[in-house]
Each structure stands twice: as C-alpha cells, then as structure tokens.
C-alpha cells in the first residue's frame, strides 16, 4: 500500500505536469527587427506575431530576408535592433544556446547534422546532461519519441545514410526532446520526397494541435496554403502583407511578386536553326532522373527557366554545357552530337555557361580586370603584350560601363559590375549562352543594361537559356518558359501567352485548374 503522503505527492506531480503541458504553448512576437549585412538590409523593421498552437507560414522569394529573420530568432545572428517577446516576456538571444534555453528550435534548410556520426550521437550531441554519455538511455528516449511521432531510425547507422527527410525528422525530435515549444522550419521541403513531405506535414499538424507554435518558412505558396493557418509575406526585407488561410492563391502571388504588368514589349528576332538539342536526356540519380527531357532551342531564341531553387535547373544547365554527362539520350549543339564530350569541347562549340556565383565560379579573386580579359581572350600570345591588353581592357571597361578601372581586382567590383565584367569576357561569337540569375542583386539600371546586351546577341544567332527567380524578368525577356518542379519540367509556356499567376502556380507545383500537390 502506498502511503497517503506518496499519493498526495503523485497527485501534486501530475497536476504540475499537466500545468506544464498546457502552459507550454507560447505566443511569439517580433517587433521592429532590423538586421543588415554591410550595405544590405536583410531585415528592415519586421514585426510579426505568431499565436500559440498555430502553423504560421512565412512566404517570400529567395533573398526576401526570411532566413535572416529566422536566424535572428534562433540566436544564430543577433539583430541590430528590435525586440523578441515570448509569452509577454522580452528575451535576449545572443547565441543559439539562449534560443534553445528559451524553447525556440530551428530546423535549417540543410539539416545541421554531423554526417559521419551515428544517429544516436547526433541525437545527444549538444544536449545537457552528465559527463558520461549514456547512449542506452538516449536510445530509449529516441525510440519513445520515434514511436510517438511515427518515425523509425536505426540509432547506430551514420547519419550520412539517412535521406534528407530522415535527417529533418531526426532534428525535429531532437529539438522537441530539448524542450522546444516554438519550432522554426526553414524551407524544409527542399530535397525530400513526396511521401516524406506528407509525413512531415502530418507531424507538424499534430505538433500544432499539442500547442506547439510552428513557423514554416517557404517560397512554395502551394505548401503554405496547404499547411498553415496564417501566412506572412516578405519582400526585400519587409513584411508586405499577411492573411488568414485559406485565401485565393492569386492574392498570395500578388503579394509575393507585386503587381506585374504582363508586358512582352521587345522586338522579336526571327528564329533560326537548332542550336541546342536534347533528345530524351536523363541523369543517373537524383534530379532529372525520372522523366526524359527533349528540347530544341533555336538560334536567336531566349528560353527562361523558372522554378524553386534546387528543382533541377542547375543540373539541367550543367547538362547543356558538358559539366555533367547524361546517362541516356543525346545532347547536340548546332547539329553536332556532343553527348559525353568534355566541357572544353562544348566551349569550343561556342557554348558558354555563367553560373550564379560570380566570384566562386566565374571571376578570380586577386586578379585584375585586364588579367581576366587576357585569360579569356583566345588571341592572347604566350608572351602577353600588356600595353595592348591594357588598351583593350580600358576600351572594354568603357564599352561595358564597368565602374572601376582596368587595374581593379574582381572582388573590389560591385555585383553589377562583376556581371558586366563577365559579359565583357564573353567571346564575340556564341551559339548558346547559359546563365543562372543574370540580374540577381543588380540595381534596375544594371539589370536593364545586362538585358540590352543579351538581347543584342540574338542578332548574331546566339540562343540564351537563363534561370531566374524573377517572374517579371522571365516574362519580359523569354520567348519560351520552362517551369521546373522537383526534378522535372512541369510546364512549357509561350511567354507571350501566359501570365504571372499561371507561372506562379506552376512554380508552386500546381497546374492551373488542378487540385492538390502533384507527386
């Protein structure tokens, strides 16, 4: 027989425990958060309230400042100014440690797990506790949490062997185990399968029902619309609107991309022969492995590529220039089969690729503008005639209005001028020009200028294939738009015959008029 004291104690404990469970629901307020990196205002006065027990979507394009805001909230960055209020109490988050202690857990886009370490080591790493590791007890606790949320892990295999979706699951239950009451998920559906996404969404709904506040950061409006109860939309570091869900997707598209005039106001160039041809191209695994791609880009044509980051566009562009080789199908340039040829053969066939990372994959830090021109000029002799090179360089700096001198180093130029330099380095004759985000980070003047240059190249029969996140840019300059979604082309549209809504919905994975998320 237990003693009455013990019974009383247990009752008290149970009451306390219940109290804990219900009071753990936390409301969160961000007030006037400012954060800048150098001259870039990543967050420019963000105010946002997340009610306890809700699934709150945070929607915006790449670079809208969502990730920065969430890193502020998880203690990764400290805000320049502003307040974070949790359950009516103002809190200071100087490090991730503070955030964890306050009950805020963050799941990063690329789950921050240690790949060579075992699942159980990943689970316990960073958790408070005794000096000695009790892996058996941790394994039991992990198993308990897994059972509760319907996950399944072998605790002794390295995290490297888990899929991205499983790594997320591991991180989520680890954060819950550490006592997180606010869960932030940064673009969690990038790179996970449809099944795993369905499971993730079910889990998040269950968590919200238990009183957890969930912030779901995404640029996929379809997912936000499916999952969340409220949504806040961010653009260029500012909140541009919020809404209770459900709301018509067109309204969200408008908030995200603004009022885009459906213009198609450029001169058309007559299209010529085939410059770039894909015939049933596939890759071995990962993106672009499911459906073969066939495509024909004519000379003088501009093809825009739309889609979320990481939907297969980068693989596609690298297939176009020989940096990746397909496992099936053929790639031809101007009628010549170049399948399985090396990147330099493509270069000789007048195909040129300008990736998004201007200083990482394009320019060389420490070398001057002139040196860049010398490196890419095919007529340079073994012994460099520097006087001639400098003159030519000065001329090109002038012609391409690069703000800087021939002696400026690549890294000292601004992003726009780096892009001008890259364009100035292009060979005079090109069959195919492949670009990632040709105007990302550029001011309007530079962006317009870049397109003027690009469109002029059509006259010489150059085909331009570019990936962009800017719907306005895609609509304005493309002849044709390909929309990528999770590793395949979900839509091919004539730019003149489509509009922002249609593309926006396709980017989100939904064909106009269709229901639900395609798998």
């Amino acid at each position, binding site marked *: 027989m237990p003693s009455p004291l013990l019974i009383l104690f247990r009752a008290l404990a149970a009451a306390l425990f219940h109290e804990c469970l219900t009071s753990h629901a936390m409301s969160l307020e961000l007030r006037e958060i400012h954060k800048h990196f*150098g*001259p870039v205002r990543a967050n420019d006065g963000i105010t946002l309230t997340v009610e306890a027990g809700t699934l709150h979507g945070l929607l915006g394009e790449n670079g809208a400042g969502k990730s920065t805001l969430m890193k502020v909230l998880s203690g990764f960055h400290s805000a320049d100014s502003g307040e974070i209020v949790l359950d009516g109490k103002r809190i200071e988050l100087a490090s991730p440690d503070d955030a964890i202690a306050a009950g805020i857990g963050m799941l990063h886009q690329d789950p921050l797990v240690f790949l060579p370490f075992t699942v159980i080591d990943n689970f316990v790493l960073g958790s408070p506790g005794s000096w000695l590791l009790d892996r058996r007890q941790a394994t039991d606790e992990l198993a308990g949490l897994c059972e509760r949320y319907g996950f399944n892990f072998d605790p002794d295999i390295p995290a490297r062997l888990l899929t991205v979706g499983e790594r997320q699951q591991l991180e989520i239950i680890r954060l819950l185990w550490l006592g997180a009451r606010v869960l932030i998920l940064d673009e969690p559906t990038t790179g996970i399968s449809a099944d795993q996404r369905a499971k993730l969404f079910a889990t998040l709904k269950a968590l919200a029902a238990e009183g957890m506040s969930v912030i779901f950061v995404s640029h996929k409006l379809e997912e936000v619309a499916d999952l969340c109860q409220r949504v806040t939309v961010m653009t260029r570091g500012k909140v541009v609107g919020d809404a209770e869900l459900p709301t018509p997707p067109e309204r969200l598209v408008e908030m995200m991309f603004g009022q885009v005039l459906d213009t198609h106001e450029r001169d058309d160039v007559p299209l010529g022969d085939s410059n770039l041809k894909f015939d049933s191209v596939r890759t071995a695994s990962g993106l672009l492995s499911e459906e073969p791609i066939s495509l024909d880009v004519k000379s003088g044509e501009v093809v825009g590529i739309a889609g979320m980051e990481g939907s297969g566009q980068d693989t596609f562009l690298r297939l176009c220039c020989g940096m990746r080789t397909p496992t099936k199908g053929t790639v031809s340039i101007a009628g010549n089969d170049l399948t399985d040829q090396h990147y330099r053969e493509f270069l000789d066939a007048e195909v040129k690729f300008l990736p998004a990372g201007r200083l990482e994959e394009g*320019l060389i830090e420490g070398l001057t503008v002139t040196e860049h021109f010398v490196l890419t000029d095919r007529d340079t002799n073994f012994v460099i005639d520097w006087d001639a090179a400098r003159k030519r360089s000065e001329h090109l700096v002038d012609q391409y209005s690069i703000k800087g001198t021939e002696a400026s180093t690549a890294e000292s130029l601004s992003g726009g001028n780096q892009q001008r330099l890259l364009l100035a380095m292009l060979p005079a004759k090109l069959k195919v020009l492949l670009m990632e985000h040709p105007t990302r980070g550029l001011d309007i003047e530079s962006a317009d200028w870049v397109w003027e240059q690009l469109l002029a190249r059509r006259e010489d029969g150059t085909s331009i294939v570019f990936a962009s996140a800017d719907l306005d840019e895609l609509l304005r300059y493309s002849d044709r738009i390909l929309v990528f979604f999770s590793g395949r082309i979900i839509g091919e549209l004539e730019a003149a015959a489509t509009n922002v809504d249609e593309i926006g919905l396709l980017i989100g994975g939904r064909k106009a008029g269709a229901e639900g998320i395609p798998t």
Partner: protein
Amino acid sequence: MTRTRMTTVLLPILVVLGSMAVLLLLAGTNPWDPVRTIVEGSIGWPPFEGGSGRKVGDTFMLWVPIALASAGLIVTFNAGMWNIGIEGQIIMGAIAAAFVAREVSVSRPLLILLAILAGAAGGMLWGLLVGVLRTAGGVNEIFGGLGLDFVALSITTYLIIGPWARSGVASTSGTNPFPDDALLPSLGGSKLSPLAIAIAVVALLGVWMLFRGTLYGLKLKAVGRNRPSSFLMGIPTNRYLLGSFMICGALAGLAGTSQAIGFHHKLIPAISGNFGFLAILVVLLARFQPVWVAPISFFFAMIAVGSPGLSLRLDLHGSLGGVLQGVLVLSAMLGLGWAAYLARRRATAAAESSNE
C-alpha cells in the same frame, strides 16, 4: 609594395630584432658582435673588401641553391600547392648530376651540360611524382612530398654507403670526389662559379617573367586562386598543377646539381643542406615576389656561411642564424595577419556606421 604594407612587415621585424638584441645584452653579449661575425664570416668586413675570397665564393654558391629552390617554390605556391617535397627534388637532382659526373666520360663542356640537364630532369621527375599523387591519387601534396623526401634521403644514404661507397671504406661522409672535369668551372681560389650564378639569375628572371608577362604564368595563378572559375574559363587545371610541380622540380634539381658539382664536389647525405625548407621560409617572407627572393636568399646564405663563426668567436651556437630566420618570417607573417585583421574590423565598423 605600398608604404603601409612595408611598415606592417618592417615594424614587427624591427620590434623582434630589438627584443632579440635586448636578450643578447642580458646574456652578456654585445648584440652587434653576432651581426658583425656573420657579415665578416660570409662576405668579409668591410663587406666585399676584407676577408677571404673563398668565403665570399661560398656565400654566393649557397645563394644559388636557395635562390633556385625559392624560384621554384614561387611557381608551386602560385598554383596553390605546398611543395614540401622540394627537399627530395633537390636531392634527386643532386643524385642525377652525381650519376653523370661519376659514370659518363665525354669532353668537359659536354659533361657539365649533361650533368646540369640530368640534375634538372631528376628533380623534375620527383616533382612530377608529387603532382601525379595529388591530381590522380588525391594524396595531399604535403604528405606525398614528405614521403618522397624521406625516400630520396634513403636513396642517397644507400648510394653513399653502397654502390658509390668510397674505395675501401663505407662511410656516410660521402662518395669520392667527382673527377675535376665534372665540376662547375670556378674563379681561382674559390668555389664561385659564374655559370651557377648565371643559372640562378636566369631562373629568377624567368620566374619573374613567367608571372609578369606570360599567359602560362597567368593561368597558373588563376588555377591557384580559384580552380572552378579557371575550369569554366577552359583552363585544364590538372595539367597546370602538374606543370607547376615539374617547373619547381626542375629548378630544385638544378639547386641540387649546384650543391653536388659546384659546392660539395661529391655526394653527401646532407646534400640538400635543408635549403628546400629554408626556401619555403624565403618565399613566405618575400610574399611570393621574385624581386624580393634574390636579396632575402642572399641574406639567408650569408647566415648559413657566417654563423658557424659564432661558436668559434663568440661561443654562441651557429643555429642563432636559424633562429633569426624563423623569427623574421614568423613576425612578418603575424604582423601582416594582424594588420589584415584590423583592416577587416575597420571595414565592418565602417559599413555598420554608414547604416546608422
């Protein structure tokens, strides 16, 4: 070099030299004495006037391998590679030159030419091996190079006590001297060989030219600074990495040749004189600039020739010179690092205040 950069390099060096002087004073030695001893023991006192021509010749003949190895290292450093294997490349150059000197009998000019070519080829092959391990095998060049250093060292020892042992005695003091015909022609009474000096000067000029005015050098620099960008520009990056190791190896091989047929006149186990490692310090101190390599190498050669006098005359160990070299390079490095750190902090602070 701009004025600010000069001060950031020179200031820490002066501070360090000053504190070394104070330490010597505390130890009861006039700090001027070791300086004078080193100068007197290498190029005479007053410089190039007093003293023996033999010492001056030695100093120049040690400048040759240091300068050659440094010239080579500028090439690999520019390609972004740590060629710790340079010691082995010097040794293999010396071995190849020694082979020609011992085993080939042709007319004198031809023999010397062959020895020089063999030396360059020996070093080049040893360098190429490091490069192949790196590009084809993915073996870090530091460890591949170090391993080949040890292998080269074992080969010399083996040759000296084995097949090339001095008649009658197997001793590590070295092989029999090479026939006179195989030695670099020198100015009377000293080892000073105008030919060796000329080769080193040409090598330094060549490397300077390579990075100053040729497309090959510019491409090497591009590969060293950013491999993905270089690849996208159409530069065959692996071929350029191999090329840098071959050039460096050939120059190191010439350094070994000069050591074998120009200085020691026989093969000894310590034929490299550690000049490969010393050259790494030279190049780090010279900030990879060929123009600075020549004087710094000469200064280091003076220390190498003059510091044995320290123990004879001042009862200070000859390694004081080595300490000085190490301290110089370390303080210059930390000084530049500190200046860069302050500049970064200022830049961030400026960016922040402009946003207020």
